[in-house]
C-alpha cells in the first residue's frame, strides 16, 4: 500500500460554450460549470459532494469519468494522468469507474430484460465466458443487491423506483469497479426506500472495498454515508473536511447557511433552530459569475475585498480546508494598511 490517492483531481475546469445569439453569432459566452476544482479520493473512503442545483456536481463527476470534455486541469488515477487518454486506452478506465444515476426511471433501457441490463458490462469487458457463467454471475449480483433471482426475465417498467435503483447498482457492480460515482442515487426515491438503498451502498462498500464519490444536495443523507464532505458553490470548492468536522464546525458562510436551512425532523429541535438570513437572495448564474468570491452577493460577512479578490482554498486545521477571506492570513500590505489606519 502506498499513500498515492486512488483518484486525484487538480485544478479541474469544465467550461461549456454557449451558442451565440442571432444578432451576435460569435458572442456566445461560456458556462463555467466547474472552475478550478481540486480534490482526492482515498481508497475505500466515501467523499460527499454537496451544493445547490447547478453548482457543478454532476459535471465534476462526469469529467472524472471522462464523459465530458475537460477544459483544463489534470485527473490522476493511481498516480497515472488519465486526462488525455483516448479511444482504446480509456477501456480499462471505463471498467474501473462506474456511475449510478439519479433517475432510476431514465437510466435503464426499457427494451432490455433485467438479466441483460445487469449483464451487459460482463460482456463488454469480457469478464465471464459462456452462457451459464454469465447467468450465474448476474444472479449473484441480483442477490447481492437484494433482488429476487426470478425477476431476471422482467423489464424495467415492471419494477418500483427503489428496485430500479438496485438494478442500476447491480449493473455498476458487474464491471468489478474500484470507484463508483453515485450521482444523487436516492434523491428520486421515497424516504422509506432511500434508507434501504443507503444501507445497501454501505454494506457493499464494506464487503467489496469500494470507493465512492457521493453526489447529493441533501446534507442529511450525506451525513449517513460519507467520511469526508466537499461543498461546492458555483463551480468552486468552498470547503472540504472530515464529515464530523464539517457538521460540528462548518466554517464557510455558505456551508453555515446551508446547514441552517435544513429542517430537522423533530419539533422541539425545530422550535430552537434559526434560519440564517444570509441565504436570502438568488443563486447567481454561472454564465456571468460575480467577481471576487462567488458567494459575496449573498454573504452577510462580505467585506470590500470579497467583491474584488477570489479567495483560495487553504487548510485551516488538519484536513479542514476553506476558501474564504475570513480565514485568510493577513497579507503584509493589508496589515500595513490596517496599522496605518489605526495610527
Amino acid at each position, binding site marked *: 500500500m502506498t499513500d498515492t490517492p486512488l483518484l486525484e483531481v487538480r485544478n479541474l475546469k469544465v467550461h461549456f460554450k454557449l451558442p451565440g445569439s442571432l444578432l451576435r453569432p460569435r458572442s456566445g459566452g461560456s458556462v463555467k460549470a466547474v472552475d478550478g476544482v481540486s480534490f482526492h479520493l482515498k481508497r475505500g473512503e466515501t467523499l460527499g459532494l454537496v451544493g445547490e442545483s447547478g453548482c457543478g456536481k454532476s459535471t465534476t463527476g462526469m469529467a472524472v469519468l471522462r464523459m465530458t470534455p475537460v477544459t483544463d486541469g489534470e485527473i490522476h488515477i493511481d498516480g497515472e494522468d488519465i486526462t488525455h487518454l483516448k479511444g482504446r486506452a480509456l477501456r480499462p478506465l471505463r471498467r474501473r469507474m462506474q456511475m449510478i444515476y439519479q433517475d432510476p426511471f431514465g437510466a435503464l433501457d426499457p427494451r432490455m430484460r433485467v438479466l441483460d441490463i445487469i449483464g451487459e458490462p460482463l460482456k463488454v469487458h469480457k469478464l465471464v465466458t459462456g452462457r451459464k457463467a454469465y447467468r450465474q454471475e448476474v444472479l449473484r449480483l441480483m442477490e447481492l443487491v437484494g433482488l429476487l433471482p426470478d425477476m431476471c426475465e422482467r423489464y424495467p417498467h415492471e419494477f418500483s*423506483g427503489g*428496485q430500479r435503483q438496485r438494478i442500476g447498482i447491480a449493473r455498476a457492480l458487474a464491471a468489478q469497479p474500484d470507484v463508483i460515482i453515485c450521482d444523487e442515487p436516492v434523491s428520486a426515491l421515497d424516504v422509506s426506500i*432511500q434508507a434501504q438503498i443507503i444501507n445497501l451502498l454501505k454494506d457493499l462498500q464494506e464487503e467489496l472495498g469500494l470507493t465512492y464519490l457521493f453526489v447529493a444536495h441533501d446534507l*442529511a443523507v450525506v*451525513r449517513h454515508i460519507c*467520511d469526508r464532505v466537499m461543498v461546492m458553490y458555483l463551480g468552486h470548492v468552498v470547503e472540504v473536511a472530515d464529515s464530523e468536522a464539517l457538521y460540528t464546525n462548518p466554517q464557510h458562510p455558505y456551508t453555515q447557511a446551508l446547514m441552517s436551512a435544513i429542517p430537522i425532523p423533530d419539533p*422541539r429541535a425545530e422550535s430552537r433552530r434559526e434560519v440564517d438570513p444570509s441565504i436570502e437572495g438568488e*443563486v447567481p448564474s454561472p454564465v456571468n459569475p460575480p467577481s471576487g468570491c462567488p458567494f459575496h452577493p449573498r454573504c452577510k460577512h462580505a467585506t470590500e475585498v470579497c467583491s474584488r479578490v477570489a479567495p483560495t482554498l487553504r487548510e485551516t486545521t488538519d484536513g479542514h480546508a476553506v476558501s474564504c477571506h475570513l480565514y485568510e492570513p493577513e497579507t503584509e500590505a493589508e496589515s500595513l494598511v490596517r496599522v496605518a489606519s489605526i495610527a
Partner: protein
Amino acid sequence: MKDAVANQPANTPGETMQKDPVGGLLQVEHLRTVFRQGRREVKAVDGISFSVNPGETLAIVGESGSGKSMTAMSLLRLIPSPPGEIIDGDVFFGGRNLLDMSEDELRDVRGNEIAMIFQEPMTSLNPVLTVRQQLAEPMRVHRKVKEEDIEARCLDLLRQVRIPDPETRLDAYPHQFSGGMRQRVMIAMALACEPRLLIADEPTTALDVTVQAQILELLKDLTRQHGSSMILITHDLGVVARYADRINVMYAGRIVESGTAREIFEQPRHPYTLGLINSMPRLDASEKARLLPIEGQPPDLGNLPTGCAFHPRCPFAVDQCRQQDPPLEPYQGHHLKACWVNVDD
C-alpha cells in the same frame, strides 16, 4: 396588504357555519376518489375524514402515491374526470358543501376563499401573460378591486413575497424568473384575495434547500399575519416538524395516524409513522449512523392487500392485521391511529 385587513381577528366564522359541528373551517367526511383504468380501480383516496381549524397548519405526509395530492384536488373538485371520480363524501367549507355546489359557485370559492399552490409553478402560471396580468385577474374577478388600486396592490403582493425591485418585474413574463421567484409569484397569486384556506402541495420540493427555507418561512409569516389556515402537503418530515400544528399521515389512500406535531414525532402510534421517522436521514445524527428503513415496497393501490394495507411491510403485524381492516380511532384525545396493535415506546 391593508393593515385594517391584516388586523382582523383570525377567520371570523362565516354566517353560514350552522352545519359545522366542531367549528372547523374545513370539514372533510368519508371522502372517496377512484381512478378507473379498464377493469382496474385505483383507490386514490379511500374514505378519509379530517378537519382544519381556523388559523392552523395541517400537514399531510406520506410516501409517493399515497393519495396526498388527490385528496387536495378532490377538495376543490379538480380531479381529472374521466378517469377519476369522487364517488363518496362531503367537504364542508364554512358550512357549505363544496361537493354539492354548482360550477359557478365553486369558481367563486376557488382562488378566492381557498387558494392552491401547485408543485410545479410553470404549469400553473400562464406563460403568455405578464405577472401583472396574472396577479390582477383574481382581484378583479373576486374582490372587485378598483382599477386604479390594482397596480399598488400587485406591487404590495410582490413585495410581501420578497421579489426584489417589484416595479421592474411587474411586466415580466414567467420564463424571465428563476424557479424560486416563480414559486414566489405563485404564492403572491394565491394570496391576492387573502384566502381563508391555502392548500400548498409540495410547495418547495423542486427547489434548493436554501430557497425552500425562504419560501416556507414566508408562507408561515403570511398565514400568521392573515390568520389563514393552511394544508401543507409534503413528504419531508423535517419541513413538517417546523411548520405544522397537526399532521395527518397517509398510507395507501387512508389516514393511518393523526395528531399534533409533538404527538406524531414523540409518540408515533402507527408502525408506518414509526418507520417513516426512523428512516429519515438526520443532520443531527451521530456520525454515519445506520438508517432503519421500512422494508418492502409501497402497495399497488389497484390491488391492495387484505386487512391492513401496511401489513406486508409491518414488523408488528399479527393475524388480525391480515384479515381485518383497522379503523381510524382515538388513541388518546385527538390523537388517532388505525392499527390493531399497541406500539409501545
